[in-house]
């Protein structure tokens, strides 16, 4: 077993997910077998191979720096579940005594 319940809980926290005990159980087993399957890549010798992150060898695509029309405030915050005027509204980030 590579994957334990603790690992799943820790990774879920990093991914900002809260899992119930049943989900933790299920994902632990499934991820363990998926990762075991992925370990087959270790059979390949990739010494000196440059990792490929993209199919297109584009680097630094530049454009002219000019002013164009952008989204209005209404368009930008219009989909927010909660807002105050032109701002996104969120629950407390810093604890207040």
């Amino acid at each position, binding site marked *: 077993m590579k994957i334990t319940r603790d690992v799943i809980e820790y990774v879920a926290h990093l991914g*900002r*997910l809260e899992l119930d005990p049943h989900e933790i159980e299920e994902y632990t087993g499934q*991820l363990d077998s998926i990762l075991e*399957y*992925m370990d087959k890549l270790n059979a390949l010798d990739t010494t000196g191979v440059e990792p*490929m992150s993209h*199919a297109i060898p584009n680097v630094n695509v530049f454009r002219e720096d000019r002013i164009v029309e952008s*989204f209005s405030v209404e368009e930008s915050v219009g*989909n927010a579940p909660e807002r105050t005027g032109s701002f996104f509204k969120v629950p407390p980030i810093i*604890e207040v005594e």
Partner: protein
Amino acid sequence: MEELLNKNVLELGEALRRKEISSVELTTFYLKRIAKYDGELRSYLRVTGELALEMARAADEKLRRGEGEGLTGIPLGIKDILCMTNIETTCASQILKGFIAPYDATVIRRMKESGFVNLGRLNMDEFAMGSSTENSSFQVTKNPWDLERIPGGSSGGSAAAVAAGLCVAALGTDTGGSIRQPAGLCGTVGLKPTYGRVSRYGLVAFASSLDQIGPLTRSVKDCAAVLQVIAGHDPMDSTSIPQPVPDYLSFIGRDVKGLRVGIPREYFIEGMEEDVKSSVESAIKVFERNGASVVPITLPHTEYAVATYYIICTAEASSNLARYDGVKYGFRAPGKDIIEMYKKTRSAGFGKEVKRRIILGTYVLSSGYYDAYYRKAGQVRALFKRDFDRAFEECDVIMTAVSPTTAFRAGEKMEDPLTMYLSDIFTIPVNLAGLPGLSVPCGFDRKGLPIGLQIIGKPLDEGLMLQAAYVCENELQLKKIPDRFV
């Protein structure tokens, strides 16, 4: 009116320009078909009837002015992952419910400029993650050829709607086979263009280095006609290729004499259904009879495709999906502080498969495992590119089956994600290498389920692939719409 189903985009365009039919009539014809058949098929998440008629009236106006072109007045369905103003875009996820994009995806903008008619939004696996459309959080779409079976995925709604004649054509997206596999399982044509050929601006991102938008259609000509409108450079997508777009329709009807067809020996695997194998082999014989030559080739890293793909796509997904935090759009669950709000929102808003992939992707990118998984997968990805580069020194196109099996039964693979992942083994390498891949129907199995032939091309060689696909289509003359929908 039913004969309208057999007309391709070019013929419909002619009829519209000659005023034999109006776009409003054509649109009404399709809306009626959706009303009649989609209660059972469940391919559309939302039908935008009023908008469709409004767009049809505008198209008729355009036609009256003699300005009809490419897709003017043609009713299409759109996978619910492409942003379009004034209507909801949900990616079949609870977390995006109610989201109305403030802008059009570039493909939508181009099609609007051409005068297309938007019939509605098609079902999909949530965030395009799946191979059966069973991961939609709203509804299960059926395969038009057998309602007990899945239509494939993730563009399952698009493939089902096209095959059942509930739109002229549809747009889908393909990250590991999500256009080609459902096209194959539903008996339609489906094309994943070269990475960068079609702008991804306004495509809700799943795995950015793999995603591409493409057409699903009932004929090869339609595929060329839709691609013509959506392809081309876009400054809004930095991975867009700044190359001119050829006239794709001009390739159709050209012969395949002297075409070198590569057949990878690794693609006739154990577990492949006998009917799929024999159907693909007889399709290849069609090309030989028409003057093409068959070249045995090798793609030695094929067995590593699924492992490589699921490391890369989950890593990119875990990063892309970080934006769904209950702040900017969509669903929010209450929480006493921001972290709790994030967690409760994401846990309630995402479905099982999406959460599984976020966890997997977060794991392979996490400190201590990055080199072993993500970096390693990037290296193996380079080997795939190398395999294809070498193979294409000896052949012009590569032909394989689209999927090892025909459509499977609903529920059959839902409990075992790895088996589901393995059903994409033939389509995944194409995305890893950024190549174009096309699915064209090549037969039916003994249960009457469609089988697809995959044609893989060199970068930007869509024209040649359409040329080859048309030879196959024209010679086989397969049935396109199942009886129950005619």
